[in-house]
């Protein structure tokens, strides 16, 4: 059992900045994320007390610079796995170990306050949906995400502008309230905010589902760049093409288990028409 993080402070600008060490400086041999024997079931007390199985024993490693794509039909447990790692779901059994500056951290046993402190800082979760104040502008949202991870104000605004331009979000939309943006526009803002000054591990849950082909291209290129800079990525995508382009490894799930794992060209060939 790895000892839990002690004395973790609420992130201030200074502490966040020091925590964001270059990913490549860390020990390459230690996986960024190490999942062992992860189980998850739900008890629906208000239905008839029934038990629903989510994950039935997951073992998985993600290393720096790796992009692991989770494939499988809906209900296979892909999102459940991401949420258990991020601890939006409470795992029922097993361990989730994250590499950190203070040594490995076992997330399932960590106190809530400490987990809240390292979320966003050491590992991030990018869902399909933009969750931000409806009356904030896109540039503001993305810049603030950067500031929260230790960037100074000027750098954050610049980086936010670069990211939004890259994702082809028209500059005229940068100051309007995010709530009036279209689904695709919101999703691009979400992606930019989730990936600016990225932590060592990113969990992506269908982050480009609402984008049309042209914008999807740009978004996938941005995600590809993440792994190039050493970020460890664990992602759920809808389409095979994205997985093919981005993944260093594809992990196929069914009924809460991993049934297959291997390089994209090998695995995806089997999944044609199945992993929709």
């Amino acid at each position: 059992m790895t000892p839990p993080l002690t004395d973790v402070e609420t992130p201030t600008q200074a502490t966040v900045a020091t925590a964001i060490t270059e990913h490549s400086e860390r020990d390459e041999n230690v996986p960024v994320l190490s999942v062992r024997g992860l189980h998850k079931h739900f008890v629906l007390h208000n239905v008839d007390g029934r038990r629903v199985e989510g994950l039935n024993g997951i073992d998985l490693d993600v290393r720096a610079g790796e992009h692991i794509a989770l494939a499988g039909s809906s209900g296979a447990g892909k999102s459940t796995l991401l949420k258990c790692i991020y601890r939006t779901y409470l795992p029922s059994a097993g361990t989730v170990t994250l590499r950190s500056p203070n040594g490995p951290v076992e997330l399932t046993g960590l106190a809530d306050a400490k987990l809240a402190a390292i979320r966003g800082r050491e590992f991030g979760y990018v869902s399909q949906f933009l969750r931000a104040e409806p009356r904030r502008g896109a540039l503001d949202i993305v810049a603030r995400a950067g500031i929260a991870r230790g960037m100074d104000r000027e750098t954050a605004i610049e980086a936010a502008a670069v990211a939004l331009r890259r994702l082809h979000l028209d500059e005229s939309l940068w100051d309007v309230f995010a709530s009036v943006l279209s689904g695709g526009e919101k999703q691009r803002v979400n992606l930019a905010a989730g990936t600016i000054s990225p932590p060592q591990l990113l969990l992506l849950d269908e982050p480009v589902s609402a984008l049309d082909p042209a914008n999807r291209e740009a978004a996938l290129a941005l995600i590809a760049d993440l792994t190039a800079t050493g970020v460890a990525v664990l992602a759920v995508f809808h389409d095979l093409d994205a997985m093919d382009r981005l993944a260093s490894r594809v992990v196929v799930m069914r009924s809460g288990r991993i049934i297959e794992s291997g390089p994209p060209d090998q695995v995806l060939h089997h999944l044609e028409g199945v992993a929709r």
Partner: protein
Amino acid sequence: MTVYDTARDTAGDTSSDTRLEDATIAYSKAPSAGQPVLRVERLGKIFGDQNLAAVAHTGPNAGTEKSPDGNSVVAAWDVSFNVAAGEAFGVIGESGSGKSTVMRAIAGDHSSTAGSVWMQRRDGSTVDLLTMTASERRALRVDELSVVYQDAAEGLDLGVTAGGNVADRLTAAGWRNFGQIRERAAELLGRTEVPLERMDDLVRTFSGGMRQRVQLARALANRPPIVLLDEPTTGLDASVAAGVLDLIRSLLEELGIAAVVVSHDFAVIEMLTTRCMVMQHGRVVEQGLTDQLFEDPQAPYTQRLVAAARA
């Protein structure tokens, strides 16, 4: 009579309870880094007959907060939680859950029956609020602990202007320069989006949403490290509430203030807090990360509440 409990905080708290010469106030000289700014330990409040035996007959299992003989209400019992610096902590529950009781106990609006409320002061020392006199607690409310009430009339003087309500806190903190007071009041009201031309209007003439904004400006006047918000948007029209909620969230983020947000509204808790707890019939039913509580609630009551909110 205060019942003390020496249960240790699970988050690695290293405070030692050393009593200073003044034995009437409980102090603890603890290192402030990593310490929560607010630590509530087994807080309890009984209204009516102070009958500790009523505790066993109340709570979620009994389905009520009222004692069988009807002479006591165990409004809150065995409530414990921490709030870190700059963190927003939510207290969610239906009416009768005890959430407002907990808030008022911390605020000092009424006395408590049991437990401790440890607060980290600006100088780094920690003090149990429940051992302080009413005078001392009132002094804290000037610049260390602020409260925003559901009913703005409780937190404001309606017969005074918007600027005057903010000036009230500034002068209480010793501000004596009219120009500076006015400037700071204008700045705060501007930040809480009260139109400048209304700064000299009596608050009585303001709408509910505007009154809440003035309350916020006043609560933040002296930059307190902790603010308590009790149903801050309840009773406001939906569109107005959204704006006030927005404002609260950006203020909390920008100023790095620790907050306790009490609400029955899931949307409010979801938007403002990172961790929260669910109360029912005066007891804590479940506690955890806000997103986890809403997406993977464990307790049957929490599952019921979440399902109802999602419906």
